[in-house]
Each structure stands twice: as structure tokens, then as C-alpha cells.
């Protein structure tokens, strides 16, 4: 996603846009940017540093790929009981609400299924018995979570990645807004949180042609999140399947849209709704329509 006034000169960390400043950085494995309704480069740099700092903090804490992260400690705790800090407890409470609201469809324990489903575009032949072997290790209801204590049974994993990026976008925006009362937009690889009075025009990337904007969306205050895309998919029975896995069957969801972008009051909520839409596969639009959500679907 590209904010309206972005001039994509990637080498520069702070870019002058059309009556705004754009700060760029990489975090959580994707290109990020903050767009600020200001002309002051000193202020812009301060805000950019705050944003980078917060993004790095959340990344260090919740990335499954960092051996020193809290997420790694949770996932390799071998069933031991862990006492968690308030922030992580909030995230787990949220994950619990999501699980409950979605009747078990939105589940942060499906990560273990990636051992058999490799979403790298390669054709693969996953046997039914392989799925059956993994399924006992899937299911949020099997996790013991009694705030602030968590027990993850051996062999199970929690993946907060599906929540963290949207959470980080909202968090960074909150931090930035508390230090400067200006309109701002935070974009973490397509998960967007905007605050202030300014109306931003956000481009939704064309699924077929990465880097090309297929349509634009106007956003003032609130969040925007996109699920799907061409980058992560598997070939199942000769058909392309997106990286969304149904925790009940252990298999990729059938017939999801190529991408779904949802607007909501917060990026966190937008992310939940777009993921839910993907989980409903061919009925993604029907789901969002019944929620009366503002969304853009691409099939």
C-alpha cells in the first residue's frame, strides 16, 4: 500500500511529500512507513525514531523467529507455566475473544500446521494422515490461559503474528499522537492506522501486478488491513490455496478471495475482520456484508 503523497525514493529515511513528511523503515519483515502532516523535519525525525523504536520493541518481543523473544519462550516452554506481563496478557485476552467471537475459526494455534503446509508456491502432496497427526496440537481451547498464567502443552505453538502487526500499527499511532497533535498515518506492510483530521488516500495494490495501485480508498481516522495476496500460497490438488488454514480441518480454506481489504475504527479490528473473511473462503463477501463492514474484495 502506498500513501497518496509518497514519492518512493526508498533510500531516504525521511522524504518530503506533498505537504507531508514520509519516514520509511523496515520492520516485522516488511517495508513500513509513517506519513506525517507536518513540514518540520526535526519533528518528523523525532516521530520516525519513536515509530522505529516501538516497531522494533514489538518485533523483538513477539517474533516467533527470534530465539530470544517472549514468543519463543512461550512456544518452547514444554508445558511449563509462565507468568506474563500486562501487554502480552492483553494480547492473549484479545486472542481469546477472537476465538470465542469466531466460534473457533480465528485460532492463534494453527501455526504448527505450517510444518506440513509450505506456503512457498510449490506443489505438494499433503496426506490426510499427516494432517490428522498435527490436528491434536491445534485448538486454543487446549491452551490453559488464566491471566496472568499461561500453559502451552508440549507440541503446541502460539502465533501472535496474525495479531501483532495490526496491534503494532495502532500502538505506534497512539504513541506518535501522544507526542505530536498532528494527522498521521502508520503503514506496516499494508496494515494501516490513521489519526487526525486529514483525509488520506490509500492505494490498494493490484493482486496481479505488485506495485501497481488498483484502486484508492479514503481514510481519515481508523484502520485498514489487507489479508491475502499473491505472495503466500500453496498448490493443493492442483489448485492455488492461500495461506489461510482452517483450524478445524487443518487444511487451507477453500475459495478465499485473492485479497480482502477492510476498514474499521482500528487497524486491529480491521485485521480481525479481514482474516475472518478469508477464513470464510468463498463466503468472504457475505460475511463482511452481514457485518456491514466497509471492505474491498479482489477475487
Amino acid at each position, binding site marked *: 500500500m502506498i500513501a497518496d503523497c509518497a514519492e518512493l525514493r526508498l533510500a531516504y529515511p525521511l522524504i518530503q511529500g506533498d505537504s507531508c513528511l514520509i519516514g520509511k523503515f523496515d520492520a516485522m519483515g516488511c517495508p513500513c512507513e509513517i506519513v506525517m502532516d507536518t513540514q518540520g523535519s526535526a519533528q518528523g525525525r523525532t516521530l520516525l525514531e519513536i515509530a522505529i523504536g516501538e516497531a522494533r520493541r514489538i518485533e523483538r518481543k513477539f517474533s516467533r523467529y527470534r530465539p530470544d523473544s517472549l514468543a519463543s519462550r512461550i512456544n518452547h516452554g514444554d508445558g511449563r507455566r509462565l507468568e506474563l506481563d500486562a501487554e502480552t496478557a492483553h494480547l492473549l485476552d*484479545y486472542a481469546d*475473544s477472537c476465538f470465542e*467471537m469466531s466460534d473457533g475459526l480465528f485460532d492463534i494455534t494453527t501455526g504448527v500446521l505450517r510444518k506440513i503446509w509450505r506456503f512457498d508456491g510449490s506443489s505438494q502432496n499433503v496426506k490426510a494422515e499427516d494432517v490428522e497427526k498435527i490436528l491434536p496440537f491445534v485448538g486454543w481451547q487446549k491452551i490453559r490461559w488464566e491471566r496472568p498464567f499461561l500453559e502451552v502443552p508440549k507440541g503446541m505453538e502460539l502465533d501472535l503474528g496474525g495479531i501483532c502487526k495490526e496491534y503494532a500499527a*495502532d500502538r505506534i499511532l497512539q504513541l506518535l499522537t501522544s507526542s505530536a497533535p498532528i494527522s498521521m498515518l502508520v503503514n506496516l506492510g499494508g496494515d494501516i492506522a490513521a489519526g487526525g*483530521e486529514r483525509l488520506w488516500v490509500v492505494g490498494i495494490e493490484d493482486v496481479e501486478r505488485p506495485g501497481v495501485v488498483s484502486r484508492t480508498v479514503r481514510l481519515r481516522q481508523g484502520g485498514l488491513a489487507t489479508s491475502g495476496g499473491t505472495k503466500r500460497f500453496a498448490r493443493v490438488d492442483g489448485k492455488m490455496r492461500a495461506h489461510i488454514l482452517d483450524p478445524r480441518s487443518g487444511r487451507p480454506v477453500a475459495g478465499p478471495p485473492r485479497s480482502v481489504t477492510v476498514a*474499521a*475504527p482500528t487497524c486491529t479490528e480491521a485485521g480481525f475482520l479481514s482474516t475472518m473473511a478469508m477464513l*470464510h473462503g468463498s463466503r468472504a463477501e457475505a460475511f463482511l456484508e*452481514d*457485518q456491514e463492514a466497509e471492505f474491498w474484495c479482489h477475487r
Partner: protein
Amino acid sequence: MAVIKRRFRRIKERATAAAYALLGIIPPAAAAESKPWNVDASFLRYTESGRIDVTEPSVSVTKPFANDRSLGVMVTVDSISGSTPIGTLPQAPGAPVTTTSPSGHATTSNPGVVIPMSHYSDTRFGTDGSWKQPLGFGLTGVIGGEVSKQSDFLSYGGNISLAKDFNQKNTTVMLGLSPEFDTNKPHGGVPVPLSSQLAPTAISADKRVIGLLAGLTQVINPRTLMQWNFSQTRENGYLTDPYKQLSIVNSVTGAPVGSIYERRPASRIGNSLYWLTKYSVFSHDVISGSYRFFEDNWGIRSHTVDLNYHWQFNEQGYFEPHFRFYHQSAADFFNIGLVTGQPLPLLASADYRLAQFNGITGGLRYGWTFNNGSLFAIRLEYYTQRGNNHPDSAVGIQRGFNLFPTLQATVFQIQYNFDPARFARDFAAGS
């Protein structure tokens, strides 16, 4: 009411609450605070060549409240001055004329060349307010009122309407009712109709109006929208214009020998049908076209075609060329003047607005949206009215005169639309 069958359980409100809880945000119960106010300030100047000038500043404010309710208030002041045709016929060249109009102003007419005019000057003050709110079951209600006052005229009006959305908001049906009560207080009193009597019969005369409106709006496809409206206006009471007169001319020479005040029926029922289509072309351009048919029991029938193209030439700016064509037939009792030796008709008016004519408007509007969300627009329009210069009913010297001089008017308007809360914040921030 058709109940929309949901295929999925509604979880959006809970999702919003869960995300707020995660982020430690107190749910914005006073969400209205963040919704922008809207102020629309406008300055309009309407200038008729050789006739009336109107200067009209107006301000309209819309304040949204929680749950899609909103309050709108508008205030306007019109300063009107200039000349307006009396309705009487020109004199023979060289015959000087000076008469007095009921408004007490001196009336002069240039002999033989120009139709007689009376000078007019007044200020109108108008205000209206409306409250809009959803009523559940897809219903939206609007209730409003208005007052308009000038030195010789006072009007109170109200309106109430209900709109209902069907079919996932693709169809909207609207019904409305608008009563109005007007009081005419002509300068010098209410003249005796069809007489030349200056002595007034009364100092004021009332009029009651009931407006009915039924509308259907339909989304045709993601780019096309149509609206059909039927409206009926029922007027009762004093519908005559107290300042308009008719000449009595010599049946042979056509020379005016006197004049009498006009008389219109005491009731009028007008029906209009309106069809609007809006069609989006290219990415952000819009073609709007409308047609209106109007018919009343005075024998007037009219057709109006209005075309507008919204050319959004970039993210912020647009041009809107506008064209309008109007044609009306004359009222049954329209009469350019009476002839000596014939009995007086029951009803008669020589008001050019009740004659047959064509009106053509061409205009251009330019608008620009600033980065802070405010909008500036300017427009210029040119309006002409052409009627029958030499009606068959003219006698004698009147045949040689232009009895329907073309009306030429320009409309110039500047408009600025902004959110005052944002304005104040930007100002405080010094940007």
C-alpha cells in the same frame, strides 16, 4: 418490511470493543465530537440587465450528533433593488407618462421604447432549520421550519419527511409534507382587483400552501443512480400580485387609456414530475441529467431539462459546465392588455412570468478542495428569457413595440465550505 436474512452472526460490535480493550482505548461514546461540523458560506449576486439586482450572502451550518442525527441551520439576507415591469403597455412615442405605483414609488416610462417599470428596493431576511434522525427499521425522518420576512411579505413554513431504505440501501422511498403560510402586506394596501382604484380594500391578504412530495431513489448499478419525484403544490388565498397592472388600450390606435390591477384565481394546484439520473464516468467524473414536467390548473405547462458535467480534473479540483432549458406555456388568463369597449374578464394578468417563454441557462462552476478539507467554489451563469415580442393580440401602435423584451441575467456565486472545529485547531496550531 422485508427482513434481511443474515447468513452470519453479527460480531462487528464485539470486535470493535475487543480491539478497543486491547489498545486501552475508552470507546468513543461521544463519537459525535469527532464528526466534523460543516459550514457553507456563500455570496451570490444576481444581476438582470436594466432591471433587478440581488445581493445575497448566506451561511448554512450542519452539526452532526451521535447516531447519525444532524441539525442544519441556514440564514440568508437578500438585498433587492432595481426596476421590474408593472405589466402595463408602452405609450405612444412622445407621450410622457408619470403615474404612481401602490408601493408609493414614482413610476416612469420612456415613451414608446421601454415597457413601463416600477422601481423597487427591499431586503429579505430568511432563516430555516431542520433536524434529521434515523427512526429505526431503515427509516429516516426530517423535520424542519422556515421563516422569511421582507417589508411587504411574511412567510412561515414547515416540512416533515420520512425516507425508508430497502434492498440493502439500493432503493429509497421518500414521502414529505410541507405546509406554508404567507401574508402579503403591500405598500399602500391591497388594491381592488380589476379596478384602477388606489384606495385599498385591506391592508393584508393571506395565502396558504401545502406541498406534497413522493420520491423514489434507485441505485441502478455501481455507477448509476436515478431518482423519480412527484410533487404537488396546493395554494389557496391571495395569489394575485398586488403591484402588477394591465393596460386598457384604445381598440383601434392601441394607445393606453388607463390601467387596472390584475386578478388571479384564489386557488392553484400544480403537479410536477421530476426524473434525475447521475452517471459516473471515467474515474471521478459525473454526468447529471434531469427532466421536469410541470402542469397546473391555471393552464401553465412546462418542461425543464438540466444537464451538468462534473469534471474532476485532479484529486482536488473540478469544473462543472451546466446547461438548462426551460419552456412554459402561458396561463389561461394571461393577457397583454385589455381593449376598450369589451367586457372585463373575470381574471387577468399581464405578468410576463405567466406568459409563454423559453428560458436558457449556461454556466460554469469551478471548485477546489484544500489539503485541510475545506472547499472553495466559484460559478458564473447566464440566464435569458425569450418570449413573444409581437403577440397577435397586440393592437394599433402596440404592434410596433417589443412587448417581451429579452430578460438577461447573470448569476455570480462564491462559496466556501469548511469545518470550523478543524479551522480553530489549525489556527491554534499556527499552521
